[in-house]
């Protein structure tokens, strides 16, 4: 089977993970923020900021996956 490195087709199977990707991006954002806050002693600034970024990123990622693949 010949492989085309430039045009991989992940879109179909990657959709399996769409549901949890949305939530886990938010959780990952909060976790990253939690770590940065612990480091800089600035709770809850980065937790909220990165949590929001994660949520936005999650929606964006899902939108991209659903509209045209990765």
């Amino acid at each position: 089977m010949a492989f085309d490195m430039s045009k991989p087709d992940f879109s179909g199977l990657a959709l399996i993970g769409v549901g949890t990707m949305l939530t886990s991006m938010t959780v990952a954002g909060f976790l990253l923020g939690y770590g940065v806050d612990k480091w800089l002693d600035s709770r809850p600034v980065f937790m909220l900021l990165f949590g929001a970024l994660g949520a936005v990123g999650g929606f964006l990622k899902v939108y991209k996956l659903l509209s045209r693949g990765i």
Partner: protein
Amino acid sequence: MSANENSSGGGTVEYIQHHLTNLCAGDCDPVTHKAASFWAWHLDTLFFSIVLGALIVAVSWRLGKNLSADTPSGFQNFVESIIEFVSTQVKDTFPGHNPLIAPLALTIFVWVWLMNFMDLIPVDLLPVIAGLFGIQYLKVVPTTDLSTTFAMSLTVFILIVYYNVKIKGVGGYLKMFLFHPFGKFLVPVNIVMSIIEELAKPLSLGLRLFGNLFAGELVFLLIALIGGTLATGLAALFWLPLQVVLDLGWLIFHLLIITLQAFIFMVLTIVYLGMAHVEDH
């Protein structure tokens, strides 16, 4: 400990909590028996996952010795069909060639499926047998333990980073963090967003498997409690058949869930590793 004994003594909450507590060694809380720090060992999780891994190795080794091209046995046919199924998934999804991916995917699929399958063994059976030997706590399904699911997803994550660096180079990998998804004018936001996106991969892999299996185990426990708490006297004539029907129904449905979860874990591993192998995504 059965549902009956416990419900009369400690109640349903204790029964469920007891079943969801690992056999902990090392730095554990003496009251709750939960891990108190990183240096706590879940002996039951380790035991069952290693035994099931050893089972795969032993069966494969035995089968490998008795392979027959002319008259394959029924079991050989069965194993070949699984290998072919996984191989097809890898060929369809994975760009390029990497000899590690197909064996990795097969191992993940079979091992996760077997660990999930422990959920279908009657919930009280193994803990009661262990109780006879003086083992107080026993959680038989390794995938209902976050330690197992995260250990596997972090291994996949390390492989993702390794192949990203190997294929794209350190510079190429770090460049991915700079300009995606908002272009060159929002580099700081892009960096944070890309780190979050990378972290979300192992997080979603681990949490999905854990959540599905933990919830499935909990439903089995609740069904077991029907007979344990309500089936006294004549009422047993109604509740016990109901428990059997519900248990059978959930078991059949759960058979689908454990297979699906093993499949999803495998496929997403292939997809994530595939994404690490292409220049730009």
